[in-house]
């Protein structure tokens, strides 16, 4: 026995030591200046791929575009660009590049980096949902559609009939060009394509394509001037264009890393960054560690050496970490709303209003919601005040999509108000037999708060319409997927503005927009949006946008606004840098510091 015990302990110690060497305890629970949690695991760190708010916070830490923001998190200032020059008519921007701008591997950041990165997006070499961000550039949309048509033609064999019809209608017909006409005609061959409707569509697309000369990338409104500056030409002047240049999608990516590693280029050890921080560690669904980038042109102003970002699901863990001093800053996704009541009066609880709206998307491609009357019935059957009351976060109920915005507010439509009698009348007219009413799935995130929301909505709809809805709670990435492929009836959605203008809410609903996700398409609406993008008079622009908003809210009713979310963060007193007002809900680590 005497011999067994020490032998046992020795074996145990040896095994554990081996495992530690293999990384068992290597989870970054070590010295970090700032420990934050923003909630879920980012889908990717590739600026061209990401669409979410959480992901964009990492982007602003790791990369920098031509334009970035001042410490107030709101005023655009030159980023990689040394200066911002705008032509008087607002259609041409010139950006000289800072000579001291460097990637973390030492190579200078050049205009060529931007051109290559934007070309990568337009040519569909990366999965980009936000490609519309580049459409203000002259010729960008046409070029992208041409490239997309190529991709679709190559993948035609693997697509089923619905996909083919969708592709033909939204891309091939409006966007194919002369060189693709022959390919289209070949696909319309009866031996290849069984469906006569599709054959007709393909032939029509081929005829249309034949009339359009091909577009080259050189025709897109971006070029490099002899002195190395980047010159961008737009289709029309856009008031919020600087926000677009600062946006994640337009940030540069390091060509050498992307070409060497493919999709894996964003991993620690492979990633190359031009922002204030570099990615040091990434353990999936656990933590991300950022380390100061000494080659960043503004490195002397970055006061954090290492930042730990814990990846947490919903639930109270984040709050518990914060209370126990294991986190210094948490945002709303991590502090459940159930627990706000006792926190509200604390000095470290910092609420702020943002330019965002919570609403329900309606899937217009499937019954019952392919009928606008039913959509309107549902919209009028929900008492937004009861919904906001259950959430207990101080949310403001709303019937409008665009949050209060100076100037626009006066012309904004009212939306559909709560009117259960009218709702029932509409539904009786459209689908009188409730027994045969199709199953409605409510897509939501997998958090307790969303379950509460579901229960309230279910209660409202059952009481006022006599219809039952089922819950489908999913985690962030899967929830996005389900929305993307239209696998839902109603979906909880939350849109935070990409730039400080009502257009960011209204232009979501264009045909084929990556963030549309309702399957709704209206050419008249698309036309109004295009007009608004080139309209320089603010009043007329607002009127156009209001007309669009009325279309999506009242006439077509493809979404049901619920409430204006309240954002808040909890910050330990030692954390400095968070602005008083943060309308665009940014978190620029570059300006944060921790006081000892």
């Amino acid at each position, binding site marked *: 026995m005497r011999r067994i015990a020490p032998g046992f302990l020795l074996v145990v110690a040896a095994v554990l030591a081996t495992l530690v060497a293999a990384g068992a305890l290597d989870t970054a629970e070590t010295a970090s200046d700032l420990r934050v949690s923003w909630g879920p695991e980012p889908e990717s760190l590739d600026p061209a791929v990401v669409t979410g708010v959480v992901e964009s916070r990492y982007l602003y830490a790791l990369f920098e575009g031509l334009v970035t923001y001042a410490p107030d998190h709101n005023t655009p200032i030159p980023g990689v660009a040394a200066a911002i020059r705008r032509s008087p008519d607002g259609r041409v921007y010139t950006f000289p590049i800072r000579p001291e701008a460097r990637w973390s591997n030492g190579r200078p950041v050049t205009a060529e980096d931007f051109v290559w990165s934007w070309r990568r997006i337009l040519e569909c070499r990366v999965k980009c949902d936000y490609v519309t961000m580049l459409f203000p550039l002259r010729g960008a949309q046409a070029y992208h559609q041409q490239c997309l048509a190529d991709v679709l033609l190559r993948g035609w064999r693997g697509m089923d009939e619905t996909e083919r019809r969708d592709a033909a209608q939204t891309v091939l017909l409006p966007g194919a060009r002369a060189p693709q006409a022959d390919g289209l005609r070949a696909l319309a061959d009866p031996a290849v394509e069984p469906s006569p409707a599709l054959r007709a569509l393909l032939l029509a697309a081929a005829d249309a394509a034949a009339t359009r000369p091909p577009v080259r990338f050189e025709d897109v409104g971006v070029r490099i001037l002899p002195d190395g500056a980047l010159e961008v030409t737009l289709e029309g002047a856009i008031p919020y264009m600087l926000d677009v240049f600062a946006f994640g999608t337009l940030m540069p990516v390091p060509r050498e890393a992307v070409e060497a590693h493919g999709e894996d280029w964003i991993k620690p050890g492979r990633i190359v960054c031009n922002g204030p921080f570099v990615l040091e560690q990434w353990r999936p669904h656990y933590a991300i560690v950022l380390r100061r980038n000494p080659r960043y042109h503004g490195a002397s102003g970055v006061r954090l050496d290492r930042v730990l970002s814990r990846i947490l699901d*919903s*639930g*109270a863990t984040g*709050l*518990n970490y*914060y*209370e*126990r001093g294991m986190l210094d800053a948490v945002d709303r996704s991590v502090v*459940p709303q*159930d*627990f706000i009541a*006792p*926190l509200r009066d604390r000095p470290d609880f910092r609420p702020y209003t943002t330019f965002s709206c919570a609403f329900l998307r309606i899937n217009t491609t499937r019954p019952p919601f392919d009928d606008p009357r039913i959509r309107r019935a549902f919209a009028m059957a929900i008492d937004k005040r*009861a919904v906001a*009351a*259950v959430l*207990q976060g101080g949310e403001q109920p709303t019937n409008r999509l665009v949050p209060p915005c100076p100037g626009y507010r006066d012309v904004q439509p009212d939306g559909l108000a709560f009117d259960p009698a009218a709702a029932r009348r509409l539904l009786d007219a459209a689908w009188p037999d409730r*027994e*045969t009413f*199709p*199953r409605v799935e409510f897509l939501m995130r997998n958090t*307790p708060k969303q*379950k*509460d929301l*579901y*229960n*309230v909505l279910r*209660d409202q709809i059952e009481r006022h319409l006599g219809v039952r809805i*089922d*819950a489908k*709670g999913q985690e962030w990435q899967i929830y996005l997927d389900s929305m993307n492929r239209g696998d839902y009836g109603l979906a909880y959605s939350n849109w935070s503005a990409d730039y400080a203008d009502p257009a960011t809410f209204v232009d979501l609903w264009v045909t084929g927009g990556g963030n549309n996700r309702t399957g709704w398409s209206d050419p008249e609406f698309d036309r109004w949006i295009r007009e608004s993008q080139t309209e320089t008079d603010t009043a007329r622009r607002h009127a156009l946008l209001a007309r669009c908003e009325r279309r999506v809210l009242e006439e077509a009713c493809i979404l049901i606004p619920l409430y204006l979310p309240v954002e808040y963060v909890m910050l330990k007193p030692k954390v400095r840098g968070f602005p008083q007002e943060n309308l665009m809900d940014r978190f620029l680590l570059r300006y944060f510091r921790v006081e000892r």
Partner: protein
Amino acid sequence: MTEARTPLQMAVRRFRKNRLAGVCLLLLALAVAASLAVPAVRQPSGAGAERIAPGAGLLPPGPGHPFGTDAIGRDLLPRVFEGLRLTFAVGISAIVLSLALGIAYGAVAGYCGGRVDSLMMRGVDVLYGLPTIAIIMLAISVFKGYGDLLFAAREGILRRENRFLWEIALIAVVLGLTSWLTIARIVRGQVLSLKEAEFVEAARAAGAGHLRILFRHIVPNLLGPVIVYATLTLPAILLFESLLSFLGLGVQEPNVSLGLLLDDGIKRIAATSLNWWLVAFPGTLLAAVLFCLNVVGDGLRDALDVR
């Protein structure tokens, strides 16, 4: 002169002497009764029709709600017992399946003996050595998703209200599949020894066929050990059902199970408001039921003098 007692009477007498087991048996009976009665009394219209009281969320135990309320104001007391009812229902179904499978397999193996027995028991050994539970979780996930597709019709067997039954049946079946191994082993051992017993010889001499001998003579004599091990396996099954619900593979909202309540409760334990009742009541009830089952099982084992 003392009356001769049947083995059964002797067993009952031994069991009754075990006061702890007796108390536990009583508690279990109470729990079963409560799980049937309480939800019916406090929620006559069934699951999903509970009053949603937005202002009454997350209240600690108090008048009107002795177990507290959950986040949207639902009284926890009937929900806990309804969860218990579901857990029991699933558990009983699973154990019945387990028994059927285990007895059949073990009896055949034990009776045939020799190479057949060796092969069959090798199979059991192999299954023991695998992460069966993990594979079964995958199976549940696959078939659950299919259930969503299957039960989309508006009427008939496949109407969507019956999806709930599909989930329950699925869980009961897979739970049964995880637990039959031990019973098979026990039964096989018993059959091996019983095979040589006198009454079997007699039956064989009387010309009875193998199947008849097996199922009319041997199996009834297995009842003792089988009951004991069934009682001891039931806690494991109940535990596994709760585990599945806790991990999200069991029933979904608005149906309720103890595991689901615990899952929800854990997510709401915060430093600023502990909400301890959300975990304490379902957890204590579950632990108490498991404890009672274990004690009763041990008591039965002692009473029936089974090793």
